[in-house]
């Protein structure tokens, strides 16, 4: 009888522990041949005022009515969007938004400048898009959540950045959001991370699910970063998604749920594993150390001037612990042609030298915010990379 009881407890303990460790194998590791690399061939320095720090959380490159290319960025300290001429790096002006009153925007965390009369701002605490203009007036709001207190279980949240921008496609705004937690098996096919806003009637629809082969089987991808999704806009208007634990890229249209999968990995990336514990109650120490130890992909960008893609890989640190700064991860940029054929990859250093979250493309090349060994807080500095053939 006692033996039977022990056996029953054993079976129950196994069946209650239904998580599964996913192993995402890099099938082309060591088999890829590089023909190109990235080299630094330029620099841009933007002089900052006394209330602006480097590392702005969001940027957008726009073209004004005279054809000038403007670099705009968010200053969270004074709730403003700053405008600089990208070519000569001169300051132009700024738009300040209020934190109180009828035109309040509590915490802008991203924006899309359609034109100076229509600036869409993501207000993070309220999970809403605010329609504003260059006078700081609020003309409308579009909520991206419901009144149900449990909305975070089935609606995305958004961590927008220069490499996860708001796109406009066919009179729709596309915001790429995410779940900040592992997704239970039964919810995987229902949780859609991309919000699609029809700007003609403010209707919101949600598209795009997490791939089952990476995020399925109750796998543990806690921490927020492994479930972050990075989009790129292809020349034909398709969205290309980079999921941090996947060596593949997932191509789709903004208003469909089907993916086409292509390889988009690194020649040096290892097998990426989910956390070997049940997601619920996993200690932060383990979550952080696991993220640091694993190779994880990040942003993907399309370069319309050279017709190529760049994808970031943050290499794992095998001996990393909870207290290791995540900026110590080496940054590798993978280069692919327009059909996602591998062209090469370049290790540019670590997050201590580069703020890769502020990366964008201009005619001059791939601009990445540079920190360097001795940060000068008076300037926002970018190094510009160009493509070089390897002989």
């Amino acid at each position, binding site marked *: 009888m006692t033996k039977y009881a022990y056996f029953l407890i054993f079976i129950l303990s196994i069946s209650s522990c239904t998580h599964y460790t996913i192993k995402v194998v890099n099938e082309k590791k060591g088999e890829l041949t590089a023909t190109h690399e990235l080299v630094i061939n330029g620099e841009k320095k933007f002089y900052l005022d006394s209330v602006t720090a480097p590392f702005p959380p969001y940027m957008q490159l726009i073209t004004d009515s005279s054809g000038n290319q403007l670099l705009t960025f968010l200053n969270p300290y004074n709730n403003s969007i700053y405008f600089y001429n990208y070519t000569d790096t001169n300051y132009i002006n700024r738009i300040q938004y209020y934190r109180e009153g009828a035109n309040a925007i*509590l915490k802008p965390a991203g924006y899309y400048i359609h034109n100076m009369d229509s600036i869409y701002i993501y207000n993070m605490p309220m999970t809403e898009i605010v329609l504003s203009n260059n006078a700081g007036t609020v003309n409308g709001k579009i909520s991206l959540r419901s009144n149900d*207190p449990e909305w975070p279980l089935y609606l995305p949240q958004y961590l927008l950045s220069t490499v996860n921008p708001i796109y406009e496609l066919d009179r729709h705004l596309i915001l790429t959001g995410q779940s900040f937690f592992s997704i239970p098996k039964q919810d995987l096919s229902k949780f859609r991370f991309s919000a699609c806003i029809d700007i003609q009637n403010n209707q919101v629809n949600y598209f795009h699910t997490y791939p089952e082969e990476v995020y399925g089987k109750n796998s543990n991808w806690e921490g927020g*970063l492994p479930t972050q999704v990075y989009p790129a806009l292809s020349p034909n208007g398709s969205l290309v998604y980079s999921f941090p634990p996947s060596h593949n890229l997932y191509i789709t249209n903004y208003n469909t749920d089907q993916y086409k999968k292509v390889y988009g990995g690194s020649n040096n990336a290892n097998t990426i594993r989910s956390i070997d514990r049940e997601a619920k109650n996993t200690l932060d120490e383990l979550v952080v150390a696991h993220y640091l130890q694993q190779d994880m992909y990040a942003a993907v960008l399309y370069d319309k001037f050279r017709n190529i893609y760049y994808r970031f890989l943050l290499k794992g640190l095998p001996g990393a612990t909870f207290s290791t700064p995540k900026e110590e991860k080496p940054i590798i940029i993978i280069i692919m042609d327009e059909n996602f054929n591998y062209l090469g990859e370049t290790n540019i250093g670590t997050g201590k030298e580069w703020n890769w979250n502020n990366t964008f493309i201009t005619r001059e090349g791939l601009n990445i915010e540079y920190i360097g060994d001795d940060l000068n807080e008076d300037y926002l500095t970018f190094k510009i990379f160009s493509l070089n053939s390897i002989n």
Partner: protein
Amino acid sequence: MKKKVIKLVGAALLVSATVLNVSLGKAKKGTESIDLLSLSRTAQAACEAAEPWSAGGKCLQLSQVCVFAVGETDCDPYKS
């Protein structure tokens, strides 16, 4: 004897005032030495501080952001 007590109390007050002044000065210097970059990073990293909270939030250690989370009370996503 009464004068001696008054002198002792006076000396103690003087020492206390001097110590207080020095520590306040240090605190002020510390405040002034905070740069803008630290402030912007602090704004990102403030997700553990808010209390009392008005909504369930979890502080993501890796991103230092407070996000809405059902059943969590780490931080207040409205305040940080």
